[in-house]
Each structure stands twice: as C-alpha cells, then as structure tokens.
C-alpha cells in the first residue's frame, strides 16, 4: 500500500509524493529526491553516517539516523541534509561552504569521506545547541566527545574531526564563556 508524504527538505517543499509503505528516509532522499550526499553505512543505526537534521520542538535541531527511520517520521517536518549547508548562487553553484565544512577542510578531517556528512550534520546541530546554551571553555572537549562519540569513521580519522570541531567552537563567538 502506498502513502502520501510531504515535508520540507533543505528549505524546499517536497510532496505530497506517493511512497510505498516501509520506505526508509535514506531511500527517500536517494531515490526520490536524488540527494545522495547522505551515506548508507551499517544500515542498523550504529555508525551514524546517515545522520540528518530535523527541526525539533521549540526550534531546537535534533539529529536522526535516516537508515533506520521510516519516511513517516519526517512527515510535515523540516529536514536538512548535507546538501543544505553550503550557500549557492542562482545557478545552483556553491559559493560558500558552511563554517563546519570549512573547519573540516582546514583540518584535513576526512579521508574517504563516507562518514563526513554525518559528522557535518551532527556538528552543525551541536553548534546550534551551543548558540542557545553556551558552555564553559573547559567543558568544550567533553561536549565534543559527547556529541561525536557515536559516529564511526572506518578510516579512523577521529583526531582531525575532533580537533576541527573543538577549534571551531572555541573560535566562534557566543558558544562558550
């Protein structure tokens, strides 16, 4: 049986679109919207490579693993994927990367890049949380560890990811005190 789903993805209204029952969000992004930047990793919600951002209650962003979440979970919600971070011009060309993307570039954070979209989304959501609730400088390392610890990088490039995020938080006004 099919169902009609609609949501907002990266600021664009999507649907109502007819989808089969049991469709996972990652399949919806790949097959229906051609947004292939979200990567399918373990398929059981463990590696967090497939993480996307959903606008939660009171405007607070939450991260959701799209490989284990049915598309119904996102009905009527605002979703951001890796394709929604960089600024683009009218022709659709990228003109500016987000601060998180820049931080990972500057720190040579990724190797094969499969896990990168998950790390970018998780870090972006973290930055937004910290903008609302800043933390003490002394706690930054722990906060970063807490936010990123579930993300698996099979190239084991954790150090550069963590360094990049830590530097970004410390250098962004308003996130720490």
């Amino acid at each position: 049986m099919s169902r009609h789903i609609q949501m907002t993805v990266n600021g664009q209204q999507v649907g109502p679109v007819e989808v089969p029952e049991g469709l996972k969000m990652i399949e919806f992004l790949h097959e229906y919207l051609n947004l292939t930047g979200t990567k399918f990793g373990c398929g059981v919600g463990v590696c967090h490579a497939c993480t996307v951002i959903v606008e939660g209650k009171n405007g607070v962003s939450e991260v959701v693993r799209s490989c284990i979440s049915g598309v119904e979970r996102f009905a009527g919600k605002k979703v951001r994927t890796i394709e929604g971070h960089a600024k683009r011009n009218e022709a659709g060309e990228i003109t500016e990367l987000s601060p998180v993307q820049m931080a990972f570039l500057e720190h040579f954070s990724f190797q094969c890049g499969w896990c990168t979209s998950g790390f970018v989304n998780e870090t972006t959501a973290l930055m937004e949380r910290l903008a609302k609730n800043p933390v003490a400088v002394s706690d930054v390392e722990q906060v970063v560890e807490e936010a990123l610890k579930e993300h698996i990088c099979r190239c084991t490039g954790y150090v550069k990811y963590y360094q990049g995020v830590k530097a970004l938080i410390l250098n962004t006004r308003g996130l720490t005190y």
Partner: protein
Amino acid sequence: MKATNISRCRRFFRRLQTALMAFFLLAGISQIQAAQDQETLIKQGKYLAEIGDCVACHTPQGGRELSGGLPFETPFGIVYSTNITSDKETGIGHYSYRDFYRAMHEGISPDGNLYPAMPYTSYHLLTEQDTRALYAYFMNTKPVRQENKASEIGFPFNIRMGLKAWNLMNHKDGEFTPDPAKSDSWNRGSYLVNVLGHCGECHTPRDATFAMRPEAHFQGAVLDTFEASDITPQELNRQNWTHEDLRQLFTRGYSRKGTVFGGMYPVVYHSYSHLTEQDMRAVTSYLLDNEADIAEQPLTFNGHDKQAPGYNLYMGYCAGCHGQDGEGRPHVAPALAGNATLDRSSAFNAVSLLLNGIVSQHYNSTTSFYAMPAYADKFDDRQLTDLVNYMRTTWTSQKADIRLSAVAEIRINMKQSLH
C-alpha cells in the same frame, strides 16, 4: 648385651619404622583427600554463588569483583552493597562459619543487622551443606581491600535496631522443604529459583512493611523504572513459554519471546547462563510447573491496521530496527510478534521502555543487542498511548485498552524514580 636382646631391639625398631611409615603415608593421603574435598567444596560454592548472583550486587560499576559499593535506592535512602571478598579487614575474611551462617540465614552480620536489600529472606532456606560450600568459596576469593560505604538512610530507619523488629514481623529462619507431591527435578528447580536465585525478591509484590506477600508469589512488581514480570506458571503458560524459550532466555538473554532488560540482564549474564543443563531443566520445569515438553504455538501477527493512529509512529520510529512486520533483526532488535513485554495486561514495561530506552547488552563475542533510544522527549502521552495500543493489537491478543491517563501516570512515576 645378649644376642636375643639385640634382635628384639632390631625387631622393635623395624616395627616402629613400618608403623611410622604407615602413619605418614596415611596422614599424607588424608591430607590430599582433605585438600581434594576442600577443592570440591570451593568449586561447589563458586557455582552456588554464581546462581545466587552475588557478583551483580556486590561489584561496583567498573570496580573489582565482589568488593561492594554498588548503590541501591530504597524508599528510605541509599544502601551500598558491602565488600564480600576474603579480605580480613574490609571484607568478610574474618567471618567464622557461624558468622557467615547468621548473615545468610538470619540477616545478622558481626557488625549488626543487615538491611533486607541483602536477600537473606530468600537465602535462609539454604541447606547446611550449601551454606558450607558458599563459606568455603568466599573464604577463598581473592581479597580486595576496599572500605565499605556508609548507607545514606534517613532517621529513624538508619537505626539498625529497628531491623530486629522487622525480622520479628517478617522473617523466620528455616530450611527448604521439598514438596513431596512433586518430582526431584521440580523441587531442585524450586530451590534454585526461590532460594539461590532469590527471584521472589523482585517478582513478588510487597506489603506495607516491604515484605514479600506470599499469597502473591511471583505475580510481578514495579521496581523503579521497570516491572519485574508476572512469572507464575499460569501467566508463563498463557504466553506459551516453552522449556526451550526459557532456556534460551536464561542462557543467551533472548528468545523468540524477546530479550531481557533492566535488572534481568545481570541475572542472565552473571548467574543463570551458568546453570548446568540438568539444573536449567529443573528451573524451567518449576517455573512452568510442567516437566513435559510444551508445543510451540505460532507467534501472533494480526496484520497492520493502517488507519490506526499508531501505524505511522511505528513505521517512522520503530520499523527500522524491529522490522516492517515486527520481525526484528537478529542481534540488533527483538521481534515484536509474541513479544512478552507487549503480551501482558500491564503496559508498564512497554511504556517505560519507550520512555527510557534500553542500554546495549553484550553476551559474548557474537551476541549483542544494540541500545534502544529513549523517546521521552520525542513522544507525548497521546502518541505513546497510540503506539503501545497499536503494537499490542498488532502482535499480541491483548486489546487496545491502554488509556491516556495510565500512560501519563507511568511517565510521572518515571520522573520521580529517575529524579
């Protein structure tokens, strides 16, 4: 000296030599025998201590085995388990057998009355032989020097003399009495479950003085965030638990009826997974009150009601791990068809699991279950009610009769128990 005297003397010394040799030989043999007996006794005690699950309560998070210090929330404050290694100063290494016996049977240690958090109300039925074996084992555990933590029980419950009155009201020492109408195996199971396994301590509701209510034996009780299930034979047989289901649950932590969680995980991990095959059958025979094999009924799946409000919630949040049709994924998430947590009149555990999630569970190098996230912040009471009712009607024969007010009450209780 005359020749006869010399030969008499020689004979005497030869006899003495033979006698001495025989004495030392026999002494040596009896020493070896004693050592062997002691070794057997320690081994037996180790097995009994495993089935008694002493490690689970007496090992602090990330700490040394049996060294105590694990906190227990009671209605009166926090009690910490004690060091029960053989350390003579901080543990129980200085206990005489009598001291040990009194602690296990009467709840009285050389330092005073024990709080009934130590299940002497179950252990008191231990046989003399088993108590001796346990004593032999504990006196030979690796000593760990770790001071005991003082309990944080408020006045007047911190006065241990009060426990004497509690014992007078609620505790009577005695030995396990087998039921002559039942088989040896059933009685062995009863002994393992009621005495060493002290299952009644969690699975039996308590009265106003927090003593187990004998008339409600094994009918289930709420413990903070989870409800220890009704494990009466009537309920287990109604849910079509078989000997094999229980064996799998107790050895691997999961069966076709679901996985263990909360306080049952350490019980399986440290304790019941070590049961011998014979004892396991005794335990399952007792719990099911049936020694014959039980036929496995097909698991319930009533099909999806796509108009039900819980359907979208299930597909969006749960189907990824538990399967589109509730079939589950091996080593990731249990199946929901016939799931024991859903298939009960009380929705307490179904709601509390959704609110609190489950931590990941590891059994061996090839068997682990992933953590289930907590949805307390994701679902409101209406959504929780819809989801639980949906799952119950889809995968069990229970009705969609869970009310919004009942779910709201569970959430409030949960907040209180989690502070």
